[in-house]
């Protein structure tokens, strides 16, 4: 692996860690999700620091170059993350629907009683 890729990976990892820390500090994501992002940045950092292990793994898995393995890991994790988000959105939608229905029914009842 080229030296510049090592540097890029390490810098990206640091950037991701700082970004995660920033949004965590601002309270925009719960701690439980920040763990996931720290995990991501750690993996990127490990690839940057110990490329040999990953080269070995990528050879065993049949990737021609190690960077392809890195990209495959990232795409795979993003897909899983999207899946998890889709499930969460569906759950949220169910809850808002229920809330809208209950509030609307209560409102109608109140207005009827007021008359």
């Amino acid at each position, binding site marked *: 692996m080229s030296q510049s890729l090592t540097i890029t990976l390490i810098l990206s990892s640091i950037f991701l860690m700082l970004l995660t820390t920033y949004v965590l500090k601002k309270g925009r994501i719960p701690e439980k999700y920040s763990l996931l992002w720290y995990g991501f940045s750690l993996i990127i950092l490990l690839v940057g620091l110990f490329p040999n292990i990953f080269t070995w793994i990528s050879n065993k898995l049949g990737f021609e170059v190690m960077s392809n393995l890195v990209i495959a890991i990232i795409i795979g994790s993003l897909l899983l993350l999207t899946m998890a988000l889709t499930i969460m959105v569906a759950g949220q*939608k169910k809850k808002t629907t229920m809330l809208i*229905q209950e509030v*609307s*029914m209560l*409102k109608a009842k109140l207005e009827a009683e007021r008359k």
Partner: protein
Amino acid sequence: MKQKVLLIIPAYNEEENILNTYNTIKNYNKKNKTNYDVIVINDGSKDDTKKILEENHIPHINLIHNLGIGGAVQTGYKYAYSNDYDIAVQYDGDGQHDVRYVKNIIEPIIKNKADLVIGSRFVEDIDTFKSTFARRIGIKIISAFMKFSTGKKIYDTTSGFRACTKEIIYDFSISYPSEYPEPITTAEILKKKYRVWEIPVEMNERVGGISSIRAWKNIYYMINVCLALLAIKIRRYKKCHRV
């Protein structure tokens, strides 16, 4: 014993039809000494539907945000459940459905022969509005998938003119799909081993407004409904029991 009947009328931008629909029901009640209650669910209409409902004292619930057909109809079932209705009838606000047929579709329920009755355009050959050729093909395909996933042939799978018992009112108030509710709930009800009947009805062409199933959406609609029916095939279902 006289059973309490509620007509659930979902309305989204129905300012042209809703008053007419309501008056037709009211006059029918007067003439035939029937006692069909009405609840209009105004699904966040952007036109004057809300104003018309209020000015004419039509019983209604204004949803504080648009939910789409499934969420609106489910609100009606929740209302029916909390007000202890025996039978709920889904009824369109756009003049497509004919109140004279309500008697027919609630009859099997009153006689305890069915739990869900679908007002069907395709059971018998009545000379009536049966929608376009392409849509009839679509309904046939959905019907085939329905047969595959539930083992029962339902001819008019997308009919929004249906009546159901108290048990199903409760069931629907707990869970109701937000999209493509008619075919999906029919399949689910069949899987839960309720008795489903189809009764021939005539439907009118829409008087005004736009149907919620637009032409260009039809293929997307078909794919989704068929997929949902396949998912229902592999799921397990239990009746929701009232506590």
